[in-house]
């Protein structure tokens, strides 16, 4: 699976699950997710769970920081640490 494919999967998931009004809000690979409030700290748990389920990995809490989850590109970087690229 290419990096581009992973990016698109994560982006699509975020758009589907976390945007209140998909008609008005467009996000890209570098759009801040946590700092902008699109994904709050509680919702981050479900995003983490999605990544773990989808890619059959376990992300330790120490790695699941708001900074590491703050954009699709940052999440893709994080996944690389688990051999997902």
């Amino acid at each position, binding site marked *: 699976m290419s990096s581009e494919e992973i990016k698109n999967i994560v982006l699509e998931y975020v758009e589907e*699950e976390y945007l*209140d*009004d998909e*008609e*008005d*809000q467009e996000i890209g690979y570098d759009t*801040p997710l*946590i*700092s*902008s*409030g699109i*994904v*709050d*700290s*509680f*919702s981050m*748990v*479900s995003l983490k*769970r*999605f990544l*773990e*389920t989808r890619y059959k990995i376990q992300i330790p809490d*120490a790695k699941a920081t*708001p*900074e590491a989850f*703050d954009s699709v590109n940052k999440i893709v970087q994080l996944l690389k640490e688990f051999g997902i690229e």
Partner: protein
Amino acid sequence: MSNMGDYQEKKSSFTWQQSEQELGYREGNVINIGEYCTDRICRQGKGGKTALIWQGHSGETRKYTFDRMRILTNTIAAYLEGLGLRAQDRICLFMDKIPELYFGFLGILKMGGIAQPLFSAFGGESLYTRLADAQTRGIITQRRHLKKVRKILADLPRLEFVIVVDDPGDKPLREREMAFDLEKTRPLEEYDCFQSRAETPSVLHYTSGTTGQPKGAQHVHYSLISQYITTKWVLDLREDDVYWCTADPGWVTGTSYGIIGPWSNGVTQCVLDAGFQTERWYQFIDDFKVTVWYSAPTAIRSLMKEGTGTVKKYDLSTLRHMCSVGEPLNAEAVVWSEEAFGLPFHDTYWQTETGSMIITNFPGMKIKPGSMGKPFPGITATVVDFKDHQPIEKPGMVGLIAVKPGWPSMFRTYWNNEETYRSKFVNGWYICGDRASIDEDGYFWFVGRDDDVINTGGHLVGPFEIESALLEHEAVAESAVVSKPDPVNMEVVKAFITLKPGFEPSEELELKIMNFIRKKLSPLAMPQEIEFSDSLPKTRSGKIMRRLLKAREWGEEIGDTSTLEND
């Protein structure tokens, strides 16, 4: 020397009249919180002083003086009145932490409306429940939250005005919706505030209980008397302070101490409208030279995870006083904050219903790490026996936290639910619903909730509301929701579920159910763990034994199981 000075001296001499006098209020006078926080401060010659420093998530920064705030809140009040909204109408604020939220709150109070702030992360059902119960007539919101309002609007015939503060105008608004751009509306220099009196309803904050739907704790304008003096004495705010309250005004801390307290004291406060990120927070304190900081244990524990090394990268030397609220502040966090910032966090205890702090650690008072502190002067608090509700005299013995009714910011009723309101008062005490003990020095020590309400990240979540919502998922046959210990949030939501025929447990189904609740209710209500089970423990009469499941999660004794239907 702190604003309060000696605790013992104040404890013995203080009466609420002292706060009334400082505010220039006399019994029977007009008292309008909106006016007190803006016009009154300007009359003191502080119109040019900065009231609000606001920063958005992208770094955009705006500053407002007290005079500008006075005019903007006038403008909002007149706009709402012009629409046909009237005194005592419930007007909801459903926004992120943008300036319009803060000014909207005061504008509503100025025109005599009842401000009903709701957390902008609430899903459609949580929003509907609260708007329907309050028979809310207007809602002020943002384009990004409009879709949630639209989904429930057809079922809310009394909601006549949906006011959008940031409508870009690229798509037509629908029936009942209207655009309102505060910056582009003609500013109103003079406005005659509603002549509210002490007992005039002001704010309606919804809070969760063990059973039934959330209840609206109704406050009155006289709450200002408590909120002003507790801010001055506990947060120790002074003329030249820059104050940062990290709470969202969707919750009571964000209004009592994120709006009313600091501004009635004429103090500059700053707001960061961005999600939690450790370095972003430190940078914010550094940039705006924050001096007094009011935050929550969950945030403090998240900061602790990053260690003191991150703290040292920033100049946080302006900080002089720090407080915490929302859940018990563990001793480790107090010790860590002394190491990291050279200052301890002072724990403060209060509730939506109390409207202001009731038991706290005061500046200058010896802190016993892990303790809640002592009652605020003017507050008579104790712990009472679980059965006869008599005060417990023996130090260290656990009972229910109880407060003598009559402090100014005490809630006056639960909206549409007087019976439940009355049930909170027993034997002449308001029973807070929390368990604690008092030591030989008079310090209170928190033990836990006395009911099944879940305190997650400082926010109360009712299990019944989540269980009901879970049953609406196509796969769920039965559900039970309890708290589970969590190192950062103190507690998180855990759900036990039995599935309908045709559904099998899987990680994918777990995630689907989590997201279902997150969207329907709120991220706070989303179970962070779901355990699928073939059956749930029930009494012989068929009631699910939630306490059994909770005891298991907390590693506690299960207790009496004589009514259990099956093991």
